[in-house]
């Protein structure tokens, strides 16, 4: 629309303006009126119907255990930072320990000691579980008090027995370090390191700590066959009912179960055991823990939440007695151990 040099008469000018207005409306009106109309009436149910994704109602019987994915999405920069933080003793109040002190990445990602030793040589109450494949656990810690890895990472940092830090202390120490401050700034922005960023980086590192391609996973994928005794061990594993609790990708780590269903275990009085009851307060949750993963189980002795079983035969016998009420024969133990040894996977790619 021309505005300044109008050289014609009033009538024609108004007419032109009116025509322009009309055109404008026609142009704008058509899509404006058109779009809400059909969308709300006839097209709507069709759209919703299309959105439905029909999933197979019938399922074929499949193995209750699934292989670890060969690759997992994670942010390399964050994971790399997490790896540094994982080994950072600055994160303990007396600079004595780091995450790696109690989670041996060269071993099973756990603490080979029955209980871990934190700052000032303080002993913990529970055995440190492995950090490998922790990302597949439905909850973290023995009693599942953390929903995800971030929440988990915040725990030991602030535990007075473990690293004894406060959020502020963590932020302050890392911000004081020029290198950390720069790296955090590059990844997360901002001039100061924040606690959430620290646990996020640690969690991102742990996401990367998966151990795929164990012999058993290869078997599950149909890429390898098991030895007869290993095969026998897997059959025993199912027949004995181990698999009712130890299933899923982590062969455990997806439900809470009681230790000593058939014959209750004697509790150690000298340690404060953090079972589900500590969370829910229900008596029925006494001695109830998150089922631990059996991945890399051959590497993660000693076993159980209290590190009370030194090797696999012992642990198997304990579990058979307390939770199944039976005593395993040596053949059974031999087969089961053979099966469990097939659960040792490849070292995480980020550690290679």
């Amino acid at each position: 629309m021309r505005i300044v040099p109008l050289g014609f008469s009033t009538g024609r000018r108004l007419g032109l303006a009116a025509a322009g207005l009309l055109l404008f409306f026609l142009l704008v009106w058509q899509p404006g009126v058109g779009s809400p109309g059909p969308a709300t009436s006839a097209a709507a149910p069709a759209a919703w119907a299309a959105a439905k994704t029909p999933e197979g109602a019938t399922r074929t019987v499949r193995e209750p255990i699934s292989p670890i994915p060969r690759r997992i999405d994670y942010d390399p920069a964050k994971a790399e930072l997490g790896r540094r933080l994982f080994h950072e003793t600055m994160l303990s109040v007396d600079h004595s320990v780091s995450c790696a002190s109690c989670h041996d990445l060269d071993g099973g990602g756990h603490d080979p000691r029955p209980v871990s030793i934190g700052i000032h040589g303080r002993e913990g109450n529970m055995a440190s579980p492995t950090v490998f494949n922790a990302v597949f656990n439905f909850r973290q810690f023995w009693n599942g008090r953390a929903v995800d890895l971030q929440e988990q990472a915040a725990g030991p940092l602030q535990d007075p027995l473990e690293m004894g830090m406060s959020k502020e202390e963590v932020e302050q120490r890392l911000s004081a370090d020029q290198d950390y401050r720069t790296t955090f700034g590059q990844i997360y922005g901002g001039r100061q390191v924040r606690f959430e960023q620290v646990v996020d980086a640690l969690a991102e590192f742990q996401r990367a700590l998966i151990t795929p391609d164990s012999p058993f996973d290869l078997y599950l994928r149909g890429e390898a066959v098991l030895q007869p005794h290993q095969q026998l061990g897997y059959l025993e594993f199912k027949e004995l009912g181990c698999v009712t609790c130890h299933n899923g990708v982590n062969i455990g780590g997806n439900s809470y179960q009681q230790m000593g269903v058939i014959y209750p275990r004697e509790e150690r009085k000298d340690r404060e055991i953090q079972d589900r009851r500590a969370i829910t307060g229900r008596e029925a949750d006494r001695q109830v823990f998150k089922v631990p993963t059996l991945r890399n189980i051959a590497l993660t002795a000693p076993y159980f939440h209290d590190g009370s079983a030194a090797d696999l035969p012992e642990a198997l016998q304990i579990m058979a007695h307390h939770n199944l009420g039976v005593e395993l024969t040596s053949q059974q133990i031999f087969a089961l151990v053979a099966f469990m040894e097939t659960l040792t996977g490849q070292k995480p790619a980020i550690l290679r």
Partner: protein
Amino acid sequence: MNPEREHTATAENHSPGLRAKIYFTIAVALLVGVLFAYYSKQAKEQTTTRLTLMSVLNQLDHQQQELDGEILHSGFFLFHDYDRLHAMLARIDKSLQDTTELYSQVALDKDSPVPELLAAYHASLADKEELIFRFLTANSMLKNSAMYVPGLSRRIMLEHPGISHDYHRLLTDLTSALYLAHNSMDPDLLGAMAQPLEGLAGHRPQNEGLQQLHQALLAHGRVFNKTLPDYNHLLNATMDSSGGKVLNQLQQALQEENRRWLTRLNSLSYLFFAAFMGSVVLIILLLFKTERENQALNRMSNALHRAATRDQLTGLANRFAFDSDQTRCRHPLLLLINIDDFKHVNDLYGVRAGDYVLNELAAIFRQLLPESPWGDCYRLGGDDFGLLLDEEKEQIAAEELARRVLTAVGQAEFNYRDQPIRVNVSLGISRLRPLLETADLVLNEVKKHRLGSFLVYQEELNLQERIAGNLEVLENARRALNQDDVLAYYQPIVDNTSGEIIKYEALVRLRNPDGQVLSPVMFLEVVKESSLYPEFTRRMVDKIFADFADCRYGFSLNLSIADILEKEVRDYIMAKVRDYPEMAQRLTFEILESEGVENVEPVQAFIEQVKAAGCQIAIDDFGSGYSNFAHILQFKVDSIKIDASLIRNIHQDQQARVLVRTIVDFCRQLGIRTVAEFVHSEDVLRVVKELGIDYSQGYHLGQPTPHCRPE
């Protein structure tokens, strides 16, 4: 007048208010347009979001059902991957997050039940998750025990065949009761387990192997018995979770909200449509208004046009209209009509009478105007009328029309207050531009020579060239006065009896810069009309007096009545006559009587004075034009010069001879001498002598020379 030009002029003078209004209108239009575009975009986005939201809710419903199916699946199958449940819970949680986020984009009002329902669903989901976790614990225990009771029973029976019949029965009872309870999922049927369990508890097997199996069997039975109600409760609670109901409410609430939003959207679109229709109506109204204003303007412009192009008195088109009309004629013909002596009418009968006559004449002219071809009648000035015709298609008989005009006017008698008034008109007709000027030129010709008739301007008349020539002549005359190129030539007058020169007639000549000498025919007519003439006369008088001072011949000087009436000239001549009394005796004034003498007294007085000084008086060119016998007596004329027209052919023309004889007789009796002009041959001289004319003058006797002496 050109209406389009008029229109443009008004548009250019529009007020600044109008411009502001237009800008305002454009601004409003743009604003509405931007609002509409915004509305349209919002509508599109909201619709998309709402559709997605409904679809996500549907998906949520589906996922929930899927989860329930998976829970049942996990209870039904001994081997189950619990990860599947967690993955489903995670998907449901993701869908719920999506729902919340999508809803936050389209939330309408604060008192909507949707956020509350979303929170309730979230809470129910958390509850359900907790229930599922607990269910899984019970599920694993129950499944293992349900598996171990029959398995252990079988082992006892196989490994220890010596067991009592009663023990055997208890084992069977326990197994079947467990089977029934497990498969019916009915805690009421657990009662059937109590009796075999109690019975088995009473047994103390001695065999160590059997005891171990017995203990385990008993423990599993007890675990099953204890867990089944829990399991049953948890399963039902999980299934009956309020989630589904909340989800339904959520869907309904959202649908209701969608309906409300649609209504709002529609009403907004109606609003826009109303605005659109309003602007259309406004445009139509404006168009009407503009049309009305245009009509008013046209009426006004017509009125103005009429006022500007019409003569108020006669109602004829005026000069202004004529100017514009004639430019549009391809082949114009103008009859310029002037009332003869209209001043007389005004003077005699008064201006009102004059106006009356003008009006009546206008009516006559209008009537005379031919119907076809195109033409109009104009009043071009005080007493000037014009008939303008276009000869584009056919030639008009202009002369015929002019004659009709003359006749009509001649026959008309205008009675003003019982006083009959008659007028005559003269016409100048022209087809050549500039129309008015050319017509005026011929009209002047008519006025000068043939009053009361008409003349058609023709290229041959060369009036304009003549005007240009006149101006040239006057210029030359002025130059001649300044450069002393006004000459006096002298032609001898001879005595017919003695053959001797008795005097010379002084004749004016004008010398061009190239030395060529012009005769009076070439300039005198023009000079006489101009203001230069008195100076010319004076110059001639000076020269003659100078030339004849020391000469014995007499000499004559041509004077017109107009010269004599000019006081300046008269006084100048008188002064000369008085200063040179001897020369005055030899001087003759030849008075040209071409015009009638209206004011006789000054002429009479002058003649008496010069006669008293000894000068003689002659009448020049007698026998042509105005020949007044009374003047001959009145002016006491000494001689008369018989006109050349009578003398030129006198040797052949009998009638001329009779006429001349009469004049000579008449003069002889009165004692007046006669002179014959234009004696160009011996034959003429002979007849002149026979007729008894006293003197002769002509080329045969002597040509005019710059000297006053015979050759």
